[in-house]
């Protein structure tokens, strides 16, 4: 059953992707117009869609900085310690 469900979505991948974008947009719209910001801890959190931007930038930063660091020589061949 699980496999069938996954295959169902995989067969309609372009649609799933489009729906995901719609979902992301709706989430930001909900945040900007309907969510009360009284629980916000800092002033920057009042910027519309702040956490959406934060999440995206965080993800991109983590990937790029880590890969840059790894390719400085930290990532090495698997038998490095065996020689």
């Amino acid at each position, binding site marked *: 059953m699980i496999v069938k469900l996954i295959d169902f979505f995989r067969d309609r991948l372009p649609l799933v992707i489009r729906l995901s974008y719609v979902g992301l947009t709706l989430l930001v719209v909900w945040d900007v117009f309907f969510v009360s910001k009284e629980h916000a801890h800092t002033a920057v959190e009042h910027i519309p869609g702040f956490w959406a931007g934060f999440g*995206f930038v*965080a*993800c991109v930063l*983590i*990937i790029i900085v880590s*890969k840059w660091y790894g390719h400085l020589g930290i*990532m090495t061949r698997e038998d490095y310690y065996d020689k």
Partner: protein
Amino acid sequence: MINDLWLHPALILIVGAFILPFLPQWLKRPYLVIVPTLAFLSVLSMQGQHGTFGVISFLDQNLIFGRVDSLSMVFAYIMTLMCIIGTIYGLHVEEDFQHVAAWLYVAGSLGVIFCGDYLVLFLFWELMAFASVFLVWFRRRPESLAVGYRYLLVHTAGGLALLAGLVLRYQATGGDLSFGPIGVGSPSLSTYLILIGFLLNAAVPPFHAWLPDAYGEATVSGAVFMCAFTTKTAVYALARAFAGMEILVPLGVCMALYGVVYAVLENDARRLLAYHIISQVGYMVAGVGIGTELAINGTCAHAFAHILYKGLLFMGCGSVLHMTGKSKFSELGGLYKKMPMAFVFTMIGGLSISAFPLFSGFVSKAMIVASGFEVHNYWAAFLLTLASAGTFLHTGLKVPYFIWFGKNNCSQETWDKAADPPWNMQLGMGIAAFLCILIGSYTPYLYQMLPYPQVAAGYHPYTAYHLSETLQILLFTALGFFLLIKKLAPEPTISIDLDWFYRLGGRGFLWLAQKPIQWADSCVSEGYRYVGLIPLMTMARFWSWFDWHAIDGVVDGLAKSVRGIGSLARRTQSGKLQYNIFYTVSLVAVALVLYVFA
């Protein structure tokens, strides 16, 4: 000798462990479930009965084995629960000593949790290290032995720091070794030494490299135990003694980010999860450093949730390793058709660790971050939030994607072997998955157990703002993941970490021993041969003549009996050092149990 009728759950596991090898085969499986369940029930029976139990006078010290309060109870509850889950997951393992090692390891953890003084703490602290190393050695790959020794050496070093701290503290306090708030306002050398001992077990950089090294190499079910007990017992010890120590906040934040960076680079699924333990324990260490009631609640809640979801993730990736023999992303992929149940369970673990609403991380991690905002430590709170984007990126997305979807890198053999794991492994995962969802969906279950239940009752994670914040961070992280997925494609590499220093340092020491020291040694031997050996041999020949003709007759009878006993003892000696250590540790444990409880 016990001042009250109080049964230590560690004792149940220790006695249970020593009986196990003598049971008939048909009885073993039910027994494996019953013993940890009894330990769990004994913890349950202590609820509401806070106090000090199991006090034993030893020399001029009072050894306290049973301090029962809300802090020790929440940890003991989850540790014994995890012991049941882990044992069920490993029910198919036929080698008794794997179960024995795992139970002794859990007993060590429970001993630390309930102890009231540093002597008892040290005793159980070392039991944990010596029992858990067998969970690495039992993997029985050529490299397992080396990894185990490294693990043991690092933990011995940490244990020595702890011991040195104890001795200094004993001197400074005039003999008071009670284990409680250590006085973080006026730290001395002993405070820092004890802190180093704790930080090493909590895998705080720079003392962290043992963790991915050992957990990536442990047996499939051994890793499930290891990922739960060592670091979280250290978190308990930190929460008990070092609450409010400010240096722990930056250390915790560094840990949270460090683990995330290395997780990006990692190609082995279990080592990736191990790096994420460092990241997640970072939240707890930071929580201890913040030290407010909300932060300590958050630390306990997160440790509780973490033990379950990390156990679940290690069970999920472990079942892939168990079935296919592979754990590297560059040798897996596209397995959802072959292992759908393992995928679903791992995904539940991934969503829990990522703090998705309705899953356990959502109600625990947020407490720590909120406590950071509450004390206006904004940079810590924002950086911890950034790390949580990294958590979802790896554990929620990278692990499931590159094992069950993505490019199929499986060899034909791997593909043929892949299938959902045996029923007991699925049952273990099922229980952990159920609890992950229960904790996330019904907050009173966990919140009522926390050390400050009133504070916890006043904390509401399910506000519209928190929901919106979390969903935005996570879903936009997912967007970033899918846009940059090519950059994350698995690379068959290893990442150099700080263990480089002792791994290559050890090699330098070996060279030193083999070349200059051995050369000096042979010079001394040669000199000795000419100056000492030749006259000595002449003497010896005379004594040999005397011995042959005079004494042998008397001694012969005696020698025969000694040889008989010697050959008996020889049969127990396999010549492998790890077995000798195992026998010795077991013997010491039995002697201790007899001494303490007889």
